[in-house]
Structure formats: C-alpha cells, structure tokens
C-alpha cells in the first residue's frame, strides 16, 4: 500500500484528501504544520511514497520544507508534490520543479483530478 504524507494547515482539506486517498486504497498520514511534517519525514521509522503538501502555510511554507529537505540532502529520497489554492501558472510550476518538486496541482480539485495526479506520481 502506497503511503502518502499530506501536509496542509487546513484540517478540512486534510480530512478530505485523506478520505479520497484512503477510499482509493492509499494509506495516508496527515500533518497540519510544516514543522510536524518535517518531524514525520525525519523520523527514520516513517517512509512515505509521496508527500502532498500545501504551498502556503503559516510560519513555514511548503517551499521552506522543500528547501530544508534539499539542504539536508534528503530530497532525493522524497517525492514532493504541491497543491495550492493560488493561481498556478506554468511558470510557477516550472519554478517549483526547479527547486526540487515533482509537480504541482491546483485546488480546488475534483476527486478524479486528485487521484489522477497522485496516481501518476506513484507509478
């Protein structure tokens, strides 16, 4: 079973994503702060197949997490994708990829969109 770490400061979104992913056969761990996410990632007992992370979060953003992982040489082990409620232009998507993200998608999303996006990144 593929294990996805979902990071978002919005608990409702976390629950929604968990519901969709688990209903489709994924195992899901939720983190509602970047800091918590990093703790989970750095815990050697945990192993995530994909990290689905919000961009805009208070205190520490998704990009900060990505940078931190990159800095600590952890990024090559992790597949990080973002989802964001911001307007996401192609250029912004490219910027994210340049700093180490696999891809990014927009919120809101339909169930099918989310599953397709996650599914493609895990094959």
């Amino acid at each position, binding site marked *: 079973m593929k294990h996805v770490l979902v990071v978002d400061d*919005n608990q*409702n*979104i976390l*629950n*929604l*994503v968990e*519901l*969709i992913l688990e*209903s489709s056969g994924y195992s899901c761990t939720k983190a509602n702060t970047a800091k918590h996410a990093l703790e989970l990632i750095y815990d050697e007992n945990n192993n995530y197949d994909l990290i689905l992370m919000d*961009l*805009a979060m208070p205190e520490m*953003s998704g*990009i900060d997490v990505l940078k931190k992982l990159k800095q600590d040489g952890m990024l090559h082990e992790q597949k990080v994708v973002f989802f*964001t*409620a*911001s*307007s996401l*232009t*192609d*250029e*912004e998507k490219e*910027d*994210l990829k340049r700093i180490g993200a696999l891809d990014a998608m927009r*919120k*809101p*999303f*339909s*169930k099918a969109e*989310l599953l397709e996006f996650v599914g493609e990144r895990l094959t």
Partner: protein
Amino acid sequence: MSSHISESGKHTLFNQATVPLILIGIIGFSILSSVALYTAQANEFKQIVKNATNELKGELSEKSFYVSQISSEDLANVEEVTKMITNAKSFQSGDLDGRKLLLDAAESDSSDIVDAFFILDKNGILQYSTATDPATQKIIGTSSFSDHVVYVKTRETLKPFISPLTNAVSDNSLVFFVASPIIDQLTGEFKGTVAAKIRADTFAKHIEKLVVAKPADIGSSSLTLLDPNGNIMYSASSTNLGKNVLSEEVVGAIPASIKDGLVASLKEAVSGTSGIYEINLKEHPELNTSNSGSSGSSTTAPTNPFDYVLFAYDPVKVENQIVMISFVTKSANLETILSQNEILGGAFLYVFVYGTLGTMTAFGIAVIIINMKLSSKVEAKTKEMEKTNMELEAKTKELEKTNMELEYSTKEISEQAKKLRELDIEKEEFSAMITHELKTPLVPVIGYSELMLDGTLGELNQKQRETVQVMNSSAVSLSKLISDLLDVRKLEIGKMKFEMRDCNIKELIEQCVKAFEPLARTKGVGLGIEWKGTGKLIIKCDAKRIRQVLDNLVNNAIKFAPAGRGKIQVSVSREHEGESITFAVKDNGIGIPKEKQGNIFRKFYQADTSMTRNAGGTGLGLAICKAIVEAHSGRVWFESEAGVGTTFYFSIPTTLKSNMPLSGQEMHSRDGVAE
C-alpha cells in the same frame, strides 16, 4: 567719439551732422530689434539686453569724462540742443506731418536764434517765409540781396552756404544767413534753396552758453575768432589775442600730432577762399569799443566777443578748424512742399562746434551736449532695458522657481508613481492572496459534495442528491468566478503573463472538443470540428490562454445550444501563408438579441441572466476572452441571428514572435513562487 568726428570730418558737413543721428539710429535700432526679439526668445533677448546694456554702459563711461565737466547751468542748454536734435531726427524720418510740426517747432524752439526761415524756388523766387510784412501780412524775405546771395551760392555749389554778416533790413541788426540747396533726391537736380536768417548777437549768446560758459574754469580758449587775415580776434586764452593764427607762436603750441593737418587747414581757411567770412570791423566799431588791452596786438579783442561772431567754415577740413561752427540745412523737396500747397519743409540747424587746438574744450562740450542727449537717451534706454532686464530676471527667477517646483513635483510624482507601482504589486499580491483565501474553503465544499455524490460517503436519496448537486455546482462556479476575477484583474493591470510558444492549433482544438464532449453529450448537443484553408496550423501564442478562450466559447455554446438538438461547430481557418488564423465557434442557439449585442463583451454582462444563472457563469468569460485575444494583437467578434444561432470568431496573427511584448503585459519578477 572724437574718432567719429575726425572720420566724418573728411566728408561733408551734412554727413557730419548725421553722425550723431546715425548713432541715435543705431542705438534706437538695437533697442528696437532687441524689443522685437523679446517675444521670440526671452532668454536670447535677455542676453541681448545684457550685451546692449553693457555696451551702452561702456559708452557712458567713455563719456563720463566729458559729462563731469558740465556744470548744472549747462543742462538748460543741453535741453535746447536736445530739442534740436530730436527735431532734426524726426525731420530726418521724412514724415511730412512730422516736418510741418518740425518747422513749427524749429521756429519756436530756435526763435531766439533763428529770425526767420524762408524758401526760394529753383528760379530764386521767394515761395515761403516765416516772416510776414506786418502791414500786408504777406510773406516776405529778408532782403532781396540776401535772398539772391544764398540762392546763387547754393545753386552754384549745391552745398550749404553761410553768408557773411550783414545788417538786417528790418531793424539793422547784424544777421547772417544759413542756406541749403534743395536737391531732388532722385535726380540730384537743384530745386531751390531753404535758408534761415540768424541774428549774430543771439547766436553768439548761444555759442557762449554752449561753448564757453565758463572759460576760466575750463582754462583754455573755447571760441576763437579770426579776422580775415587770420589774426585772433578773440580767444578765451588771452595770450593768443591779436596773434596771427598762423604765426609761429600759435602754431608752435599746437601738439605735434595734429600740427601738420591743422596748419594746412588754417592756411586754407585764412586764404579766404574756403569760407572765412569777414566781419568788417570798421563797419562794426562796437567790436573794438572795449579792448582787452592785450599787448603788442595790432588788433584788439572785443570785451564781449559774443555779441558778434566770426566763423570759419570749411566743410572738408572740419576736423582741423580752430573754430568751426557750421550750420547745415536739411535739403527739402520743394516740389513736394509746393504740391502739398503748404510748406511742410524748412531750414533747420544742426549746430556743431569742432575744434582741436586750444579749443578742445569747446569741442568737448559741444560733443558732450550732443552726447548728453544721447547719454540721457542712452541712460533712459539703459534704465528701461535694465528695468526690462530686471523684470526678465525676476521672470527668470520665477521660472526657475517654477522649474524647481516642477522638478520637485516631477520627483514627487515619480515617487508617487513608484509607490503606486509598489501598491499595484501589493494589490496583485493581495488579489492572489484573496484568491487563495477564498478558494481554500471551497476545496472541502467541492471535494466533500463530490464524495457525497459519487457514493463514497454512502448512498443519497434523490432529494439529497439534487441538493448536494446544487451545492457542488455553486461551489465550482464560485471557484471559477474567483479565478476569473483574478484573471480580469491581471489583464486590467497588465500583469497577465503570456507564454508565447509554438502551438499546434489542431491539437489544441481537438483537446478542447474532447474535453467538452462529455458535457455536450450530457446535454444532447453535437460537437464537431471543421478545418478550413490550407495554411499551417502552428503559430506562436500562449496555448493555455487560447485554450481558455476556446473553452469559454465552447462552454457558452453548449450552454446556449438547445438541449437535445444542439449543434456546435468549432472551425479553424487559415489561408495558405495567411497572416492570421481565425477560430469560430458556431451554435444553433437562441441567438443574442440585437439590443444586447453591444454589451456582450462587457464585464459581468449576461445577455440572458436566467439562462446563465441556471447554467452557471460569471459574466466575465467574454471580457476575459476579448482581453486575451487583444493581448495577442488579435480580434474577437460575433455574428448572431435570433432563432438561428450565434457564431463567435477570433483571429490571431500568425506573425507573433515569442519575445513579442503583448499589450504591455509584463509580469513582475517575483522571488520564488507566489502563493
């Protein structure tokens, strides 16, 4: 100034007389021309005024030496000469009315010098006189003899003539005549003579006033009177009295620099051929009544030499005369005068006193007097110009101040603009943030409602399903509205980023149609593609944005096409090598009512509100389409017929380049990624 005189002295008297006039003229002209420039170029004029002022100041300082020698009593005389010059100047101007005025003025102004003016025609017949017979009131000449002399002399020489002293017929006073030929200015023909009768005594008084007001102070002879043999009859310097002007004693005292010319001139003058006019001392014993008692002199000098005058006259060698008093009459055109049936011209005097030896002061004063006029004029003009200059400087300062204020304002404005730009960026970031904040809560609404609808959360009954469906579609359209608003905002402030790349239009259309097929099928609407023309379907554009336009149009078409029997045709046409590619989305819907067609591209405008409310829509779609197409230098339009359908078109030039600036769209660079 002395150089002016000596130079002009080589010419005729008349020319000399014009020298100061020319000077006046030059100054006047420079002032006038300066004034003319005033409106044209204030700065240039300012410079000219400065230059002119400096020049005039220079001239003034040159004259200050002479001016300093003039006592206050002389100023009255200055006034007199000033008038004469002023009159002479206006006479010179050739204005007929001016001449008449001048004649009147000359008569009154010079009344104490000039006894009468009169004019003889080319046959020597008296035509005009300011003197009239008290009995008959007829104009009269002075004496037939005098008339005859001045007429003959001027006709013979065509030059001004000054007669010897003679006794006036009327009162037996000692008078002389100053005459000038009237010469046709075109043909040079002699037309007559103008003459003035001058009383010797009043003239002498004038000379006294003008030349030798204070001989003692001046300390050298101011006026020297010679007898026909060249003996000095009067000189303020008493040492020379009675001596012959050509004697070694006198000549020896002449400064070497001017000696040769002066002596030659004196010789010529004394020879009697060049205009030393005799005062017959025997006929005028009053000249001898009171001798100054100078020693060893065969002739005694008069105590009051200014009651009578002897003058040397040489129009050619003026600069070397000991005393040169000349009277020049201005030529007048007699024919003009006569044809006017009234006398508009007349004799007029220009008085100049020149001298070199021992009479330098006389020269100086006379010149000063003339120049005083110039000076006062110059001073007045200078003051005027200085005033103008000051005004200009004030204006300049004002302008400089305004300029500074403007510069300050400009700076302030540019700072404001900068702030506004920053604010704009802030606003954009604000918009992005708002978008983010508005959309985030929609995520669970859309997501959960969808999960409810697809049964993930258990089966819903019909009523529940319909309700959740409304919630879902409302949330979706709200999300769409938020995106559209952000797009509109970006388009409005020119922050919409267009990524110009080669785009395969065929693929683009096919993807679009494919994406809408499910929706179309649901509604029972046919969706077809038509390719027109033979041109290449790969162009430079922002594929995502063009797709957005297409999506919008197709979505609208499906929305408005009649359910179950709708038919939509998406077509693309490009002629071979055509410079534009045209997209068309045709439906067989209800059409757009004519009265609403004009507003169709306006923001938040919906032709059929009931329809859009049902079908969902923001009223921003077409406005965004238009903006996107126009940003591609393209055009969007439509054709619509009620009951038949509507076709939306847009065309994009095929000549766009990837680095082409599009309607000033320029996304400001951001550090990292905005959220």
